[in-house]
């Protein structure tokens, strides 16, 4: 059956049967990839374009009605909306600090695993748990741990250690950053570890003979070798953190608003939903992200 499909593919387009092998291979190549490309383009290119369109409209509740063009109204509204700016600020703070946190922690743990030790297989599995476990499960576990009345952590912090006296430690930016750092440091760990392990030990031995202490070794050998990986990890986490929704939403809902949750709330969770407005915010996010990524790549990766 497969031969006949292939024969059919090569035959239908040939009125002049003189296709070269190169052309036949090209045809097959396209035939195999085109369905995927079309689907993915449909789910990416078209929505991005459609999103731009929607941001200039007001989307009615009834899906059978078409959106009504309102020009820049949505953009004006959001630029004047203090909630929007709060979300922007929160997003930038969150993205930066959790990115730094996850990368730094991932680096630290990767350094611990640089050399083999007894039980490192199991340890590695444990360290990966925060990253691979379902988000819903760990988000709610953290919620429960931080529950003001019955949670273990506030109890320890307030009653045992006496360091915290707020009402709800969960709904703070600090906690959100901490959660994200915990969740994603294994990702940084994995990528950095692969690179760290490939640094030849001779470099360290030579440095030791030259009298370099551990910190100097780190600064002059490890860090330069890891430059690229660290930059890549930082970039990837930046992109994902900037766009984050589910992590924050499941953890604090709308209590620490970031751009992602802002879009969701405006588009699906308020009555009436304002999808045109939400689309405008999403649009700005895309543009902002693009600019940041290009800027980052230009500046940092052209070393």
């Amino acid at each position, binding site marked *: 059956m497969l031969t006949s499909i292939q024969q059919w593919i090569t035959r239908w387009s040939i009125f002049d049967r003189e296709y070269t092998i190169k052309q036949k291979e090209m045809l*097959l190549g*396209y035939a195999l990839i085109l369905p995927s490309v079309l689907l993915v383009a449909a789910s990416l290119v078209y929505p991005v374009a459609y*999103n731009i369109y929607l941001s200039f409209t007001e989307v009615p509740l009834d899906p059978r009605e078409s959106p009504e063009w309102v020009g820049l109204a949505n953009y004006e509204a959001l630029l004047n909306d203090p909630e929007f700016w709060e979300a922007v600020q929160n997003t930038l703070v969150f993205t930066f600090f959790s990115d730094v946190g996850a990368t730094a922690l991932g680096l630290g743990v990767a350094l611990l695993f640089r050399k083999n030790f007894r039980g490192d297989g199991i340890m590695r599995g444990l360290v990966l748990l925060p990253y*691979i*476990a*379902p988000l819903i*499960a760990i988000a709610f576990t953290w919620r*429960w741990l931080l529950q003001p009345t019955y949670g273990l952590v506030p109890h320890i912090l307030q009653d045992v250690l006496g360091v915290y006296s707020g009402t709800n430690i969960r709904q703070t930016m600090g906690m959100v950053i901490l959660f994200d750092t915990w969740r994603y440091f294994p990702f940084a760990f994995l990528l950095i570890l692969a690179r760290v392990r490939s640094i030849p030990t001779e470099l360290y031995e030579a440095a030791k003979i030259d009298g370099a202490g551990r910190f100097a070794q780190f600064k002059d050998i490890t860090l330069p070798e890891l430059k690229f990986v660290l930059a890549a990890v930082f970039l990837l986490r930046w992109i994902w953190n900037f766009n984050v929704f589910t992590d924050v939403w499941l953890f604090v809902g709308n209590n620490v608003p970031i751009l992602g949750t802002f879009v969701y709330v405006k588009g699906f969770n308020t009555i009436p939903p304002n*999808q045109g407005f939400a689309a405008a915010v999403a649009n700005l996010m895309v543009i902002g992200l693009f600019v940041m990524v290009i800027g980052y790549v230009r500046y940092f990766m052209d070393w």
Partner: protein
Amino acid sequence: MLENIITMATQAVNDLSHRLRRRSIEAPLWERLAFYLTLAVVGFVSVFPFYWMGVTSLVDETWLYQTTPQAIPALADLSLENYWTLFGSETVPFVQYFLNSLFIGTVSAALGLSFAIFGAYSFARLEYPGRWIFSRGVLVNYMFAGILLVIPIFQILVTLDLVNNRLGIIVTHFIFVIPLGLYLLGNYFRSVPREIEEAGLMDGYSRLEVIARITIPMSKPAIVATYMYAFLLSWNEYLYASVILRDQGLYTLPIGIEQLQYAFQNVWGDVMAASVVTTIPVLFIFLYLQRYLVEGLSFGNMD
């Protein structure tokens, strides 16, 4: 007799001190202690929430809602009542949620993989203009994931009448999964020895037949692993599921767990039990995928 004991004891102490002295050339004792201590802390921090999740799910309500939260329950406080509630409930069709997630996960992963296999093959073996861009650009797709496109995609699905049914979510998930499959399998197929496929051609089989009869059987481990990654993407997905699925009977696990909060009194035990149930399949899957993670989330050299 006493003499023997003394001789043996002195021997043992001598050996031990020799060994310790040798080790100190490798690394001072305090350094190794610090290392293991740090490792223990890292391990603890990674694992503790899971411990808490498990414990919370296995105790009865009264222990959970004490005025002073405790860290370790006594054996007497353990019970399976949360799980019984979950599986026996009439208001919350938890089993249905589980089955929904399972169904959607297996089907969307299978569909996504079928498209991805052929596309990945064309990346790996065939030549046509644009191939370079496609294969590199595949992962760029994920930069725009999630919240950025949820509004337009939602609108598109509404137009196609794909909301609030399983088909809609399956379609969304399987399209989402395709780029990942293309990337992972594209890498892997490149490492399949070219000559074995050429032998298949020389034996009279067309490319499509070679893919089906030679490449795919030889790539079984990679295909299974990719399938599992795809399954997990769907299993954990929250945003689109929450937006597309409205009827309670259609909920997947992430939505179901979120909704649990509102279903019961003193709900946390049940929520944690649900989280445990959601997490366990993931852990099993990762036991299998563990070896591939070492290569930094890609398929490097595998046997």
